[in-house]
């Protein structure tokens, strides 16, 4: 099936490949960091060379480490090698610490290249590719202008422009080793000023690009971008200010400024790392938060689709469900669903449960960068859905059992009413007529005795029929039926009906018998003096009832009253409701139930 091509590709992305390349990259990065650190450490051009050497080494190691981490996690993404690459170019800039014209000149060119490289890296974050024409044009222009400017500089300038804060040499640096045409100082100065403004322009351009990207991206991308935007604005602002001041006046020497620059430089690799982790953190924490709140009966296909769409920040997100009936996927409405072709700008992540297809998550290709997150959410969603289905099936089966029992009781009651009870009534009437007409007093006495017997039988039968299914419940609802119970009970029962109205037969019966059980318990344990309040109410979509007594109460921890409570819970649970029993020795008992009615 062609539709499976996309998931297969997606699954491949997840396999952690090329561990050897990753290890080699890590090793090369470590060596390069040590080399760069050492170059600065022993440099005569750098003040506090030892401290700055260690700092430089650590900074480069940071870039390489973040790059290695990204690559190991997503071997098919170019982002990891790109970030590590920044570390290697950074290493080359350490040549500016060498007090000889040629290495210094190479280091300065590397520094110029690093600025263009950063522009490319930031503009392509987090995909590792320049996707929009604006991004491509901007990076192209930055590279082009830098090449032209540096060709001019290398040919004409005796002194290369100040390298800004990233340069290790800050004063009395070597000359341009490649100068072909001798010129006056003013040419070097002019080109230097132009360079610093161009650099500032590139920095501002990168910030604008990042901000623009953050606005247009789906939420999950935005979450990844925010840390980098904050870090790069900070970094670019300090960098540009320093460069412009150095070139137009003299390098600033304030300690605060240096601390800010160091923080800015360190913040960038950290932001690159944090940005990748953050999207997943937010998505998973949202999932957990939601999962701990949602009731199983509320987990519907539509709810899951909406929830995942929100969590992933992908408005185009679609969820498809495997259907054995259709031998294929169906959408949230149960209609057959065709997975997008591999060429569509949408990706499919398949979720299997116990080796069987379960869910298909159809999402923006942008989310391929966070495939583990998508898969994790998908597996959790499938588990939630399965749980909801099981809970629903169990509830439906309990409800069916309860309903069939209730129907049977109702039928019995009606059979008695329409059959035996009617016959007895008729016999009573006929006996009465016969005894009126009987002329012999002995016969009349006999007939009257028979009539009395029949009346007793009728009354007993009525009580039986009533016990099987109280007709009043069927005809008038819970409130009148319980009121009738209250009227008959040997204890004082106050009825408070806050407009419970009518509800489906199953719900009324469950509430009635549950309240009856609670009333019987109150009478049994509370004796003749117990007072009971029965409250019935209707919330927007729930029938609420409460039976509260001032009897002796019990310790809910002990299981003395277990069976009565279990049968009450079963009745209420079978119609999807819940029961709260509160009691304490000496403090009475409150049985409170809530049953949803749709």
């Amino acid at each position, binding site marked *: 099936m062609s539709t499976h091509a996309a998931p297969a590709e997606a699954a491949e992305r997840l396999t952690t490949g090329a561990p050897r390349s990753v290890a080699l990259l890590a090793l090369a990065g470590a060596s390069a960091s040590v080399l760069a650190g050492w170059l600065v450490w022993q440099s005569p051009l750098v003040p506090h060379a030892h401290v700055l050497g260690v700092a430089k080494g650590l900074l480069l190691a940071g870039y390489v480490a973040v790059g290695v981490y990204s690559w190991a996690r997503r071997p098919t993404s170019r982002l990891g090698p790109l970030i590590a690459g920044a570390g290697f170019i950074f290493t080359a800039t350490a040549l500016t610490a060498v007090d000889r014209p040629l290495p210094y000149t190479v280091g300065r060119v590397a520094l110029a290249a690093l600025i263009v490289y950063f522009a490319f890296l930031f503009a392509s974050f987090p995909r590792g590719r320049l996707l929009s024409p604006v991004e491509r044009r901007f990076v192209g222009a930055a590279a082009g202008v830098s090449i032209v400017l540096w060709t001019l500089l290398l040919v004409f300038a005796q002194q290369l422009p100040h390298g800004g804060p990233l340069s290790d040499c800050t004063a009395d640096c070597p000359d341009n080793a490649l100068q072909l045409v001798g010129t006056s100082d003013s040419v070097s100065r002019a080109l230097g000023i132009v360079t610093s403004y161009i650099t500032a322009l590139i920095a501002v351009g990168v910030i604008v690009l990042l901000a623009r990207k953050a606005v247009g991206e789906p939420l999950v991308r935005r979450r990844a971008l925010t840390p980098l935007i904050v870090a790069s604005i900070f970094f670019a602002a300090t960098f540009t200010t320093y460069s412009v001041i150095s070139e137009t006046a003299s390098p600033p020497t304030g300690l605060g400024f240096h601390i800010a620059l160091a923080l800015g430089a360190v913040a960038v690799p950290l932001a690159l790392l944090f940005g990748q982790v953050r999207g997943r953190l937010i998505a998973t924490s949202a999932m957990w938060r939601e999962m701990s709140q949602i009731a199983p009966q509320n987990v519907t296909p539509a709810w899951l689709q909406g929830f995942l769409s929100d969590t992933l920040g992908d408005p185009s997100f679609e969820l498809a469900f495997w259907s054995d009936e259709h031998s294929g996927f169906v959408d949230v409405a149960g209609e057959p669903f065709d997975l997008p072709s591999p060429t569509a700008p949408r990706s499919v992540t398949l979720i299997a449960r116990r080796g069987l297809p379960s869910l298909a998550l159809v999402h923006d290709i942008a989310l391929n960068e966070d495939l583990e997150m998508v898969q994790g959410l998908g597996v959790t969603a499938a588990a939630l859905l399965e749980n909801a289905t099981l809970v629903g099936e169990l509830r439906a089966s309990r409800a069916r059992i309860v309903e069939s029992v209730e129907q049977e009781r109702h039928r019995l009651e009606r059979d008695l009413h329409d059959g035996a009870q*009617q016959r007895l009534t008729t016999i009573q009437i006929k006996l009465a007529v016969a005894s009126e007409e009987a002329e012999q007093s002995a016969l009349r006495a006999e007939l009257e005795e028979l009539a009395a017997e029949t009346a007793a039988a009728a009354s007993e039968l009525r009580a039986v029929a009533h016990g099987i299914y109280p007709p009043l419940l069927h005809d*008038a609802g819970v409130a009148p039926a319980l009121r009738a119970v209250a009227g008959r009970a040997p204890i004082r029962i106050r009825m408070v009906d806050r407009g419970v109205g009518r509800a489906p037969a199953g719900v009324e019966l469950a509430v009635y018998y549950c309240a009856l059980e609670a009333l019987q318990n109150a009478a049994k344990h509370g004796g003749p003096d117990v007072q009971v309040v029965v409250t019935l109410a209707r919330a927007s979509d729930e029938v609420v009832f409460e039976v509260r007594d001032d009897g002796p109460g019990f310790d809910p921890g002990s299981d003395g009253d277990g069976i009565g409570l279990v049968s009450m819970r079963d009745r209420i649970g079978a119609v999807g409701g819940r029961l709260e029993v509160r009691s304490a020795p000496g403090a009475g008992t409150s049985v409170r139930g809530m049953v949803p009615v749709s």
Partner: protein
Amino acid sequence: MKDGHALRVVVGEDSFLTREAITSLLEDTAGIDLVAACEDADSLRSAIAREEPDVVLTDIRMPPGHRDEGIKLANELRETRPEVGVVVLSQHAEPAYAVLLFEDGSHGRAYLLKESLKDRDELVRAVVTVADGGSVVDPLIVEELLELQRRRRDSPLDRLTPRELEILGLIAEGRSNGAISEKLVVTKRAVERHINSIFLKLNLRESDDVSRRVKAALLYLSGERVDGS
């Protein structure tokens, strides 16, 4: 008898046996003219439209719904034919049904248990009373209610004298002051004094309208106060 002519009665009862029994009871009764006997709610409605009876005698449960068609019909007739009296026959010794029947007033309504049909006088009394605009509640129901109330501890009924209890029962049955004085062989003045005392002791609002006080007494005995306290 109403204005000298026999009371025209229509019967609705789905059980053949009971219908026959009721028919035989009423056919032999002077002053009652049984004009139709129907087996379901719909044919009963058309018989009422056709025969324009003085009294309708109906079962509570009837086809097609087998629910409380009799009570529904009685409430319907209060709108469409207020002059028609209705006797509802029931298998349920359940005062709540009488309360349901009296929801919009107990004027011209009677609630009778089927087992009371054996007493022809009781049936005839109910038919004649509702034709007259009065109310009747089966004495068996009232008796049971009084019994239940008296069994309770701290029942407010303990405050009543035996004679007052007896009168409260008769009120709940729908008897007028005249009927009560006749039955107890006391003067109407004495009955009125007793009734005042009962209503005062039970903190019930008194009403001169007999049919309204039936409902009040019935509700009171069913364990529900209607005094607004």
